[in-house]
């Protein structure tokens, strides 16, 4: 059930990304998300980028609500319900994290938790440009090996992060790959991991309304992202005709992704 909480801290992570912190009592695991309500505006799904007692979401501007969220100052009241969905399995000894854009928001707490229980973390982070690289310092702080890629080459390798992750997969042995980002990117990462014989897990996004497995807004093949996901094994995602190609708009109509 929903709690109304006050924003305790606002951190501008990159020019387009802001983290809001707030106290929210329910326990959460990395990978899970909350429904975040801006009273008077929309309620949207947001992965938890911090899962301790002081929770956090890291929001990229996409449209009016995410812009509204970014404008919130400490003290602003927001509605939070959840956490919902499943989490990353924190077992792998050597994990490769592949993040595109705000995908690092959900992967950072998972990697942190894995590192805390002894996993070796390698992070491939991608962004359009250097200033948009999210949580680079946070990954370094947890002791991860960090490789960067930017579309404009301003920092790290020029081009997509899949280039970086492909060469990591070719050169290093991993027990799992975790990825979050645009679906075409995740699709590539999952396929490369499969070729390297490494199980991959991707966190996917679909329109969320109830977040309770009822309204069907988040239908993805036979799954409901809100309860069966958002984290899926790559082998479940790649066979889906819609993965990387189609999504449903809020009306339920299928549209290109």
């Amino acid at each position: 059930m929903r709690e109304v909480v006050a924003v305790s801290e606002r951190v501008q992570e990159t020019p387009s990304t802001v983290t809001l912190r707030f106290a929210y009592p329910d326990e959460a695991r990395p990978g899970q998300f909350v429904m975040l309500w801006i009273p008077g505006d929309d309620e949207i799904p947001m992965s938890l980028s911090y899962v301790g007692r002081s929770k956090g979401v890291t929001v990229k501007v996409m449209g009016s609500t995410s812009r509204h969220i970014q404008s919130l100052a400490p003290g602003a009241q927001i509605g939070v319900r959840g956490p919902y969905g499943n989490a990353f399995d924190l077992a792998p000894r050597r994990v490769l994290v592949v993040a595109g854009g705000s995908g690092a928001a959900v992967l950072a707490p998972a990697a942190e938790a894995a590192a805390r229980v002894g996993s070796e973390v390698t992070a491939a982070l991608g962004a359009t440009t250097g200033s948009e690289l999210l949580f680079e310092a946070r990954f370094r702080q947890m002791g991860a090996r960090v490789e960067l890629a930017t579309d404009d080459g301003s920092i790290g390798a020029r081009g997509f992060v899949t280039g970086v992750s492909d060469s990591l997969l070719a050169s290093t042995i991993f027990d799992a790959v975790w990825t979050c980002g645009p679906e075409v990117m995740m699709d590539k990462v999952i396929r490369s991991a499969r070729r390297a014989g490494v199980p991959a897990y991707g966190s996917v996004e679909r329109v969320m309304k109830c977040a309770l497995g009822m309204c069907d807004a988040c239908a993805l093949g036979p799954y409901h992202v809100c309860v069966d996901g958002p984290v899926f094994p790559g082998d479940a995602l790649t066979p889906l005709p819609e993965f990387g190609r189609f999504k449903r708009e809020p009306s339920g109509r299928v549209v290109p992704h």
Partner: protein
Amino acid sequence: MADLKVDLAGLRLRNPLLLASGIWGESGESLAGAWEAGAGGVITKSIGRSARLGYPNPTVESLGRWGFLNAMGLPNPGIEEYPKEIAAAQARGATVIGSVFGGDADEYAELAYRMAGTGVGAIELNLSCPHAEGLGSDLGEDPQEVEAITRAVRARVSVPVIVKITPNTADPVALAQAAERGGASAISAINTLRAISIDVRLRRPTLSHGLGGLSGPAIKPVGLACVWQIYPKVSIPVVGVGGIRTAEDVLQYVMAGARAVEVGTAVALDGIQIFSKLSQDLLALMGELGIERIADVVGAAHIRPAVNGVPLAAASHERRP
């Protein structure tokens, strides 16, 4: 071994447990999933003429085990787009019932006609959404409108027509009888109860639409009362909906007069396994109570049986003033 098969106005159902409209009903694969999970039939999301986004979030408020408030705002992809979802479910063998909503009798008739064209086993007319101005319940509260809409639909389709009525009424019987006069093949009752939730810190309703509909266990006694009232007053079958979560709930509805039931909120509370669980539990309960076929006990609670061998006429409360 008890038997769960029922005949609903000519529609043969492998069991009486239908997926309620609006739950898992936007995608054909979800409908198929509910069918494969054991539903006796699946009712689509209510479909209108063209795509509707529905209301902005928050569209749902959880009340825990009691159920939910929702004001989805009838999101749907529109009747142009939707047939492919039905086809996907039918391809997997599902018995599909197509739900439609509209703004007047012509629109309902047109939508039902196009819905029937997809080969659905029956049509359900949503005349009872409590939170969509000018649609559904606004019409469904008026017996004359109910009769006119049903008649217009009846004239265009040959499959069974189920009219879903609202509990937000002084007289559910009048609505059911209006539907029957209009040619309905069955009545389903109930849709959600008009309700709201307010946050005292924010001083505002928590659903973006303000008013919404209450569903789930909290409304079971109300849905049951509607079925109880309607059953003896119509000669068409009644489908019970509202708060069903256990086999006992199902049997209560059946004994109140329901030939089949719809399950909505319980899917969110218990997962889609609710259908196989209900089937198994229902068979077990029927075995325990010596009931062979669902059809044998439809409306059974209306027949005041001799209890413990004492005929009721002799019992004191029938004698008191």
